[in-house]
């Protein structure tokens, strides 16, 4: 019940700004155009093994849209700001775990971003580049599941980034570090199999491919949804880490000012 209410509220807060966000979408889609042109340019003289130019355009189109669900989560789920204002003391007093409240609020945001960012941005690429659609109905279900797993993972990661702010004022840097690593290791822009062997090994032993690479491969029907088993394992691990961090955070809280 609480889950549904919080998700709905977070969704509604965002809804207030939807026209501004729709303009923002045009701007953010231009970034994707740039990446697409880079691959088209490279594809003129090189064979883009396993994808071809059309395949890479479809790949980038999808990942650029999926970013809004599986990568661009709120910095620290808003926790650093709450630590700064002292609001965190009240949050920790509530009869619901901090992880649960902040995560659920973020799900509302994810739902909003999926409808008002991911889908419109994908539609832009879809029409401009005449992208192909998956032929098997199961692919859509698999893709949605992959995106949901990605969203869950990024929520856990941002929670961990956020909760660090209870002990240090530098949590923003962890946010940037995560962002940089995800750009490199998640298969955004460069498919994981094209990374040099050592980087590929690092990527495949991390959760990052579940944010972008596996969802897009499933959508392009180059992978079956069974790979998501690994993603579920990462979900369990990171949820455990988040719960553990919450226990630590509740032990002793120092709030500045007020």
């Amino acid at each position, binding site marked *: 019940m609480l889950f549904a209410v919080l998700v709905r509220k977070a969704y509604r807060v965002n809804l207030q700004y939807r026209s501004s966000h729709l303009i923002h979408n045009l701007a953010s889609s231009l*970034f994707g155009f740039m990446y697409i042109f880079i691959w088209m340019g490279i594809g003129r003289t090189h064979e883009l093994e396993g994808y071809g130019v059309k395949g890479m355009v479809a790949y980038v189109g999808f990942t650029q849209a999926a970013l809004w669900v599986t990568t661009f989560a709120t910095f620290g789920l808003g926790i650093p700001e709450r630590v700064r204002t002292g609001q965190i003391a009240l949050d920790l007093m509530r009869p619901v775990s901090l992880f649960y409240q902040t995560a659920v609020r973020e799900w509302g945001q994810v739902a909003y971003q999926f409808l008002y960012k991911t889908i419109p941005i994908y539609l832009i690429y879809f029409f401009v580049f005449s992208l192909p659609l998956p032929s098997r109905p199961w692919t859509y279900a698999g893709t949605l599941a992959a995106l949901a797993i990605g969203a869950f993972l990024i929520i856990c990661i941002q929670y961990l980034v956020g909760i660090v702010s209870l002990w240090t004022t530098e949590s923003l840097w962890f946010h940037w*570090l995560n962002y*940089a690593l995800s*750009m490199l290791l998640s298969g955004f822009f460069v498919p994981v199999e094209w990374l040099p062997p050592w980087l590929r090994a690092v990527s495949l032993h991390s959760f990052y491919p579940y944010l972008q690479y596996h969802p897009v491969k499933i959508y392009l029907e180059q992978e079956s949804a069974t790979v998501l088993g690994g993603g579920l394992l990462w979900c369990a691990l990171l949820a455990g880490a988040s719960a553990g961090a919450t226990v630590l955070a509740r032990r002793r809280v120092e709030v500045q000012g007020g």
Partner: protein
Amino acid sequence: MRLTRIFLLLIRASVKSRMQYRFNFWMSTLLASLVNMSEFLMVAVVLLRFGGVAGWSLYEVGYLYSVISLSRVVYRSLANDVHNLDRYLVSGDLDQLLLRPLPLLVALMSQNFRILLGETLQSGGILAYCLYKLTASGQIGWPAVPLTLWIVLNGAVILFAIGLATATIGFWMTKVEVLQTLTEDASRSAAQYPLTLYPGWLRGIFFFVIPVAFANYVPALYVLRHEYGLWLLAASAGVACLGLAAALAFWRAGAARYQSTGS
């Protein structure tokens, strides 16, 4: 002269205040290098895989990347809060700066001076390595080194002019984050690759609307590939001067119509 002295004094105060938090400084330096490194690896991975793009070798593209990164370091060190002008506009904090007996732009530029050590070392390292490799192969000679320093500074002026013009739009629109994504982030990312990769209309934008082409690509055509002639550097300097003059005039017009939030 007096203005320069005040500017340096304010910067020293800004550095001093930052160094009160030594741990934070070193931590942010370390993490900034990691973030930058990963950004470069994204470009490098593509080059390693395809052995260069659009006829440009790995070291040539590394040069393009590191030159524009260093230009950005110079711009963002000296004028960090020009990029963050919209924060002052939203909070009304610009009022305080207007009260100072200094030109508004100088007052704004001396706020929050940043020592971008991580970015400098990382981009500087890549530049030095690329220059070394290109010199060793005989493609370029030692004059490329002073010319490159000049290109970095010239590029910083161009990036500053672009940043200042974008921030000035904030006097009309208040929030310019989306615009900055386009004029500063997207265009700089695009300029990390040879511009011949892009379709003509987009290339036109990078030459004539948001002139990042003159920050690295155009000068590199002469310095690395000996194409056209020395006049390419003069043209780049001309674009920097024109861009700066236009941005400053625009800034004056924008600042004249500033209205406080009134809170």
